[in-house]
């Protein structure tokens, strides 16, 4: 192992991320209400109902996103993986569009599409499904739509890679051994694609639970996710230590969720697999 080769990136991470983060988190302990001890910021945090609710909102939106992205991404990845490699390049480019378009532009596009006079509402009105324009924008729905847009490539890419690596003769073998095509899919293909799905779900969860712009521009008052609160704490109260405490809280929540997933499906087992 050449230490010298990884040194620059390690140095960058330490200087730009780890040290500032550590200093920030340190302030959450040292600078609190006077005389209330090291954990005063955390006591305040646990006592504040809107702050706790903002954690739940973040989790709720992230979970909803993971569910929808998985439901949409699995068939999409399957379709791409079944395609001959040289034909899948085009559709793959379309899937990764969110990666290389300006996010702000896309989100304003969503505002137009989902708005009162947007094409969706016009369609709903024209077909008589609704009598008044439905409120789509600035709801949990519009936030999840934005999240799904961002999350889909994060799900499809690892899933596609996992599916491509599955030996197709395994499914044929299963059928020759007496399994119906759907039995073969469920007992062979699905479990072998799970590592990719879990990797995708983790990426989508981590990304969306901490996303700021999407809920800010597509969400309403009820979509008060954690990060909005953190920003608000800094901006209005100029209370950086309290914001830092909230940040550590979010970090802990993410770690707890990942640990739970790890326990349930054994992330390490999947990731260390040599197939």
């Amino acid at each position, binding site marked *: 192992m050449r230490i010298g080769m990884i040194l620059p990136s390690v140095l960058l991470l330490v200087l730009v991320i780890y040290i500032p983060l550590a200093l920030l988190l340190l302030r959450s302990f040292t600078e609190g209400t006077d005389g209330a001890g090291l954990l005063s910021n955390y006591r305040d945090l646990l006592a504040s109902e809107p702050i706790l609710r903002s954690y739940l909102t973040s989790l709720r939106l992230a979970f909803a996103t993971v569910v929808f992205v998985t439901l949409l991404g699995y068939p999409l990845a399957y379709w791409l993986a079944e395609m001959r490699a040289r034909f899948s390049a085009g559709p793959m480019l379309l899937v990764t569009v969110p990666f290389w378009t300006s996010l702000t532009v896309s989100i304003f596009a969503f505002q137009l599409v989902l708005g009162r006079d947007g094409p969706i509402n016009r369609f709903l009105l024209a077909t008589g499904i609704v009598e008044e324009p439905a409120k789509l924008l600035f709801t949990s729905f519009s936030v999840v739509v934005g999240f799904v847009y961002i999350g889909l490539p994060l799900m499809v890419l690892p899933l596609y890679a996992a599916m491509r690596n599955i*030996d197709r*003769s*395994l499914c*044929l*073998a*299963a*059928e*020759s*051994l*007496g*399994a*119906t*095509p759907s*039995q*073969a899919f469920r*007992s*062979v293909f699905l*479990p*072998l694609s799970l590592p990719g799905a879990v990797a995708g779900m983790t990426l989508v969860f981590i990304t969306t639970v901490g996303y700021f712009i999407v809920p800010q521009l597509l969400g309403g008052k009820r979509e008060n996710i954690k990060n909005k609160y953190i920003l608000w704490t800094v901006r209005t109260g100029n209370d950086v230590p309290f914001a830092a405490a909230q940040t550590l809280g979010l970090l802990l929540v993410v770690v707890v969720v990942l640990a739970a997933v790890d326990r349930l499906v054994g992330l390490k087992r999947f990731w260390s697999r*040599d*197939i």
Partner: protein
Amino acid sequence: MKNDGLEFVGVTKSYGDQQVLNSLHLKVQRGEFLTLLGPSGSGKTTTLMIAAGLTEPSGGHVTLQGRDITHVPPHKRNIGVVFQNYALFPHRTALENIAYPLKVRGISREAMRRQAEEALGLVQLKGLGGRYPRELSGGQQQRVALARALVFEPSLVLMDEPLGALDKKLRLEMQIEIKRLHEELALTILYVTHDQEEALAMSDSIAVMRDGGIEQLDTPTVIYEHPKTEFVATFLGDTNILRGVVAGEGPTAQMMLGDGEGLPMVGIESHGLLKAGSAATAAVHCYKVLISSLDAPTSGRAIVVTGVVEETIYRGMWWLIGIRLASGQTIRGIRGEEQGAVPRAGERVVASWTVGDMKLLGMRD
């Protein structure tokens, strides 16, 4: 005779305008070990996949134990398949792999376990059932694949070059193993290989395939000793092919390889091919050709030609010596160790064999 094994009736398969199988007729009797032998692209794997139901034929019929299975999906055929790469399920242990066909048949957990353990013992892997495929050696994986294809007592077992990935020693071991299972369990086996030694050692019958058709189907000895065509003779290896023109008739008939270089044809199996002036192709195994020095006696061997040594290859038991004849054709023969010094390249020597060891082949091409 009614066929209670596998039968292909005029089966064709084409991809686009490329014909892979050309009206194939083939019968595998119950309890028979039949090998499809041929070069890659001869259609042997396609034949196997059609039997398994994993490839749809373009035409013709396939029957198994008298039942037309041409359009029966693979999972309803009760045919065991051993794939070239084993196709073991990587997320299941060896025992779970073997139990899989029982599981999808809805057999009780207890019976499943007992039968799978039994199959594990059958392939001599007792105690390794808990290992994952990646924790097993190539030979052990092969045994698991074998057990998995046998555990549900299939009416037919298909094997697609199952020993191709193993080293020579292991390959010989598995050949004996598969042969043992074939006899013990009275299996009907359709086996695919491009390895002539494997085919000769294991099979009851060999079908030599070429360009999507069967060139010759017979027992290993007949295939080896009496190849019908030049293709079969050369594919089985170590066979000399000589070309010439028939001169004279009856007892004076000769096959002229070139100017003044004739082989007497008296007593050869001719199948009516011996007509003066017609082109002839003859085959003789290397191991039937004796290479000796110019002055050595060639008593009892009617065919004697002289040539110049081109190559000498040590094969342990003997030397394989290639010589070039006056006509420019080459022939390989053997020289036993007891026959003294091995001739060197450039030396003039004599090659001799008996008329009975030479076969006149059908006129193809």
